[in-house]
């Protein structure tokens, strides 16, 4: 006798009468992903193992070209800087540099990384609230674009100028009210309170620095393009004011980063396809005041998230499951919040490699850490999945492979799917020796089970 096809017994509570009245099937639609840029998930896992981060070179280049065209077509005097902290893998930075982006860094470490990749100092924007004397000296001697955050840094840079015996070109970072909440007032000099104009006066009085740029970064994942219109107008107004009053020559205005990606920010009700503005909408708001300005200074943007997020995927594998006492099913996958740092703020797309049938049930996705906080998705309706099934999370290209941590487990490989479908390695899986390479064990603490 041929055995019948088996399906697990499933009982599901109906939370309201919706199902009954409208006859909606509890067999929910599951998003499926068999490949990335036509390379099969199975082949990627076969080559690199699981879990593995995967980046699409095609997606990166297409996104960059589209964003570049949106701005250059409206305002040709435009330059992108690649925000290193968003993703500073050498392979990823190199793609952006090949496309024409300069580097935007916020620490001595990131500065070193850009230099090691072959970027000249003059093509590095050096931001951040703390820059050591050594790195300020190096950056100034290499003609980097130094963006000053506070009055202490003005003092430091004046010392560097004396030491190098040269007048250092500088930019000041400005914060302002653009109508969005929360207002990032921690960085730079405040515009409305007069702090910014005081910084300008201080720099002029010191006579050792030459103010030639203005910078702001109003926040990240900004869903209202109008905030940029406000920022652009205020920055241009401030430029006109200080040029008239002090005879300065401002070469560029840098409006920072902050464009949203197609990620689902928790608390935003609408899906990202509806909530997230297009790059053209951002470009319209930003370039309009620039076009209307008499001087038309160079416009710089330090876009991070928008350019890389959707090019990144994490492939993971179900390694176990259990029924929790609240009736939800917990799936344990081989990658957790140690690798997906941004899971705290964003709900990723969850795509299954295989067609999976059956009644959906309330489920959650947990990582492999022995920590209660290791939750990638706390509430999702899923059909019953099997051990070994693959789950693809996206978009995860921004901030995860920089903010991830070596915690409890080795960090996995990072792969690139090349323009022609090549499967290339961008980062090896960590080994014990990598993790321990900075550790030192005092001789007297050495232990052997043999003795």
């Amino acid at each position, binding site marked *: 006798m041929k*055995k*019948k*096809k*088996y*399906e*697990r*017994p*499933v*009982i*599901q*509570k*109906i939370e309201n*009468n919706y*199902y*009954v009245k409208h006859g909606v099937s*509890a067999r929910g639609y599951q998003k499926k992903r068999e490949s990335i840029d036509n390379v099969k998930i199975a082949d990627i896992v076969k080559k690199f193992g699981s879990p593995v981060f995967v980046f699409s070179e095609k997606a990166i280049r297409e996104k960059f070209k589209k964003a570049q065209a949106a701005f250059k077509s409206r305002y040709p005097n435009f330059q992108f800087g690649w925000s290193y902290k968003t993703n500073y893998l050498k392979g990823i930075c190199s793609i952006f540099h090949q496309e024409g982006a300069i580097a935007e860094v916020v620490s001595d470490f990131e500065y070193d990384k850009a230099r090691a990749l072959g970027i000249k100092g003059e093509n590095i924007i050096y931001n951040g609230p703390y820059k050591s004397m050594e790195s300020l000296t190096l950056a100034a001697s290499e003609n980097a674009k130094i963006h000053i955050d506070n009055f202490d840094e003005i003092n430091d840079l004046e010392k560097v100028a004396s030491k190098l015996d040269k007048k250092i070109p500088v930019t000041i970072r400005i914060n302002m009210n653009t109508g969005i909440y929360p207002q990032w007032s921690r960085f730079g000099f405040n515009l409305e309170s007069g702090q910014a104009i005081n910084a300008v006066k201080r720099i002029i009085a010191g006579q050792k620095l030459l103010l030639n740029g203005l910078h702001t970064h109003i926040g990240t994942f900004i869903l209202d393009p109008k905030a940029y219109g406000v920022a652009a107008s205020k920055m241009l107004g401030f430029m006109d004011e200080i040029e008239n009053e002090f005879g300065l020559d401002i070469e560029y205005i840098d409006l920072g980063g902050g464009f949203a990606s197609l990620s689902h920010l928790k608390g935003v009700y609408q899906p990202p396809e509806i909530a997230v503005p297009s790059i053209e909408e951002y470009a319209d708001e930003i370039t309009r005041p620039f076009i209307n300005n008499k001087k038309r200074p160079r416009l710089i943007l330090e876009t991070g998230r928008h350019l890389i997020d959707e090019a990144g995927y994490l492939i993971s594998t179900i390694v176990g499951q259990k*029924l929790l*006492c*609240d*009736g939800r099913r917990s799936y344990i996958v081989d990658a957790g919040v140690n690798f997906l740092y941004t899971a705290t703020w964003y709900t990723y797309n969850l795509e299954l490699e295989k067609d999976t049938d*059956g*009644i959906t049930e309330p489920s959650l996705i947990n990582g492999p850490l022995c920590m209660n906080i290791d939750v990638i998705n706390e509430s999702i309706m899923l059909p019953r999945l099997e051990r070994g099934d693959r789950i693809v999370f996206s978009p995860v290209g921004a901030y995860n492979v920089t903010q991830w941590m070596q915690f409890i487990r080795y960090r996995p490989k990072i792969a690139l799917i090349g323009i022609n479908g090549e499967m290339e390695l961008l980062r090896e899986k960590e080994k014990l020796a990598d993790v321990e390479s900075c550790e030192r064990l005092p001789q007297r603490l050495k232990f052997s089970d043999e003795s």
Partner: protein
Amino acid sequence: MSNFSHLAVNDNGFLFDPTSGQSFTLNTMAQEVMSAMKEGKDVDQIARELSHSYEVSYESAYEDVLEFGTKLKLYGLSL
């Protein structure tokens, strides 16, 4: 397994619990397991029968039936 003879499942797998006023849906397999339980069969016996007639191992079927019983308890449908 406990007595839940007061619970009726219709042909579409729709179950209404008159004591709590709650409704549930069951797939075909769940309906089959539920009637086996109503007949007083235990987990071992149901798992054996399932693995005999369906493409499933005894071990998997055992786990599934056990879990189904846990769910009934969680939903207050059995003691």
